[in-house]
């Protein structure tokens, strides 16, 4: 029971230890806050500029969610397509892999030319960076169906569509939720990177302007906020995953 409690609190303990160590190093060696601000300094800046930070954070948040929403729709549809048809799989997969290897930050200037400065490039970057894992996971869930099960249903005259809806889709749900957790963190990366060069609002923009004004405490505060938002969303999807696809996690959850 004691080790259970320890396990539960371990992330907080580690976080606290890291902050204490960081603060200790900064105070002990008297590190300049223009080089590497201490946690205390970041906290002060966070409080001081809370209105500004909140506005930028909100912008980053909804832009990310918009991009992520498109990523879910496109990822699920493409994943469904390539997971259910071998022809589509062999046609699309290599292209998608090549596309996924492109650094998405490099696309931002192109998106700016097409859509101008603002939310367009940010939403699209968040989308482009995060749909791939969703697509791959849906496709994997559909493509790895047991052949025996398929025979059991096909003998009854089930069409390919029946097999996909009755078995394929529910079966790929754990993969889907697993991929959402990865994809949401990537979406925040996409939005932030895009805002750094192609926006006048958002945490990415805040990072750049705080950096150029030598307000390192504020820049770090911005980073902390993005990290916290991504972590909260990760936890949200992880919660939904546990409560909708418990059958797939019975071992680790100790049901």
């Amino acid at each position: 029971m004691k080790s259970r409690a320890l396990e539960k609190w371990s992330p907080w303990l580690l976080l606290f230890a890291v902050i204490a160590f960081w603060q200790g190093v900064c105070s002990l060696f008297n590190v300049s806050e223009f080089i590497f601000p201490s946690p205390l300094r970041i906290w002060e800046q966070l409080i001081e500029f809370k209105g500004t930070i909140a506005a930028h954070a909100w912008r980053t948040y909804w832009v990310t969610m918009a991009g992520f929403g498109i990523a879910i729709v496109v990822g699920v549809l493409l994943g469904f397509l390539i997971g259910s048809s071998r022809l589509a799989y062999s046609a699309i997969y290599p292209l998608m892999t090549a596309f996924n290897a492109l650094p998405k930050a490099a696309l931002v200037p192109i998106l700016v030319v097409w859509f101008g400065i603002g939310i367009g490039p940010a939403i699209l970057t968040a989308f482009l960076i995060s749909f791939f894992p969703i697509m791959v996971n849906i496709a994997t869930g559909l493509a790895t169906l047991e052949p025996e099960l398929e025979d059991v249903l096909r003998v009854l005259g089930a069409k390919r569509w029946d097999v996909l809806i009755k078995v394929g889709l529910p079966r790929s749900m754990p993969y889907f939720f697993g991929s959402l957790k990865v994809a949401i963190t990537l979406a925040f990366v996409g939005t932030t990177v895009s805002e750094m060069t192609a926006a006048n609002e958002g945490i990415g923009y805040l990072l750049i302007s705080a950096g150029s004004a030598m307000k390192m405490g504020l820049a770090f505060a911005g980073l902390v906020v993005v990290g916290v938002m991504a972590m909260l969303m990760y936890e949200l999807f992880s919660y939904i995953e546990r409560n909708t696809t418990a059958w797939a996690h019975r071992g680790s959850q100790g049901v």
Partner: protein
Amino acid sequence: MENSPFVDFQDVWLAYNDELLAQQQFAVEAIDLQVQEGEFIAIVGPSGCGKSTFMKLATGLRMPSRGTVHIGGQPVTGPLKISGMAFQAPSLLPWRTTLDNVLLPLEIVEPYRSQFKQRREEYAERARSLLRKVGLGGYEDKFPWQLSGGMQQRASICRALIHEPRMLLLDEPFGALDAFTREDLWCILRDLWAEQRFNVILVTHDLRESTFLADTVYVMSKGPGRIVVKMDIDLPRPRDLELTYTKEFTDIVHELRGHIGAFRNEGLGVAK
């Protein structure tokens, strides 16, 4: 029509694709076999001898490369919808309860499919009574992963029988179970068959299992997959587990073993 066989294989050959056909590599060759309505047949043979291929032909999942398959007097042109299947792996869906797993075929096969929503209660009751018959009463709302291997296999057999198929195909259904559970399930299958008299094609490599359950046992050889021996099992029914310890019974098992041993040795002789 009374005497025309229910399952009729006439000189059936199957190669899995055109390439293999061109090379004359057949998974099964020259299968000639007639099964009467309500007959319980078993097909035994070493692994890889084409037993599962035979099942695919009998269900219409595969078309023969040569020869014809007739079932119920009709030439087979596609999946039949009058058969149920169970395999060595129970392959139940882990997100459905036992009851919902058993109901799955009714959501797919006509005429149940179109009435499924209106008559769900009636169907559920039917599934429950079937589950009770195999000793799974009280486990309807459990998930498959909460059941033991033997119980999962029972549920899998219920799933194969829920739409009252005229033909039940079993591909080594008890292969992964321990000896006691296996014998329990033999008796359950025996009783279900005695009651409903569907046709059974049981593929197995357990000679005692085939002798205990079947009316007729076919022995298949490996490479080429051919039926080499047909053996009628004339043991009286109803058969009791005690029967498996009588001399009569073991003589039959020995004879079957002899047939399989013979062509295995032959095969080895050729290889040398």
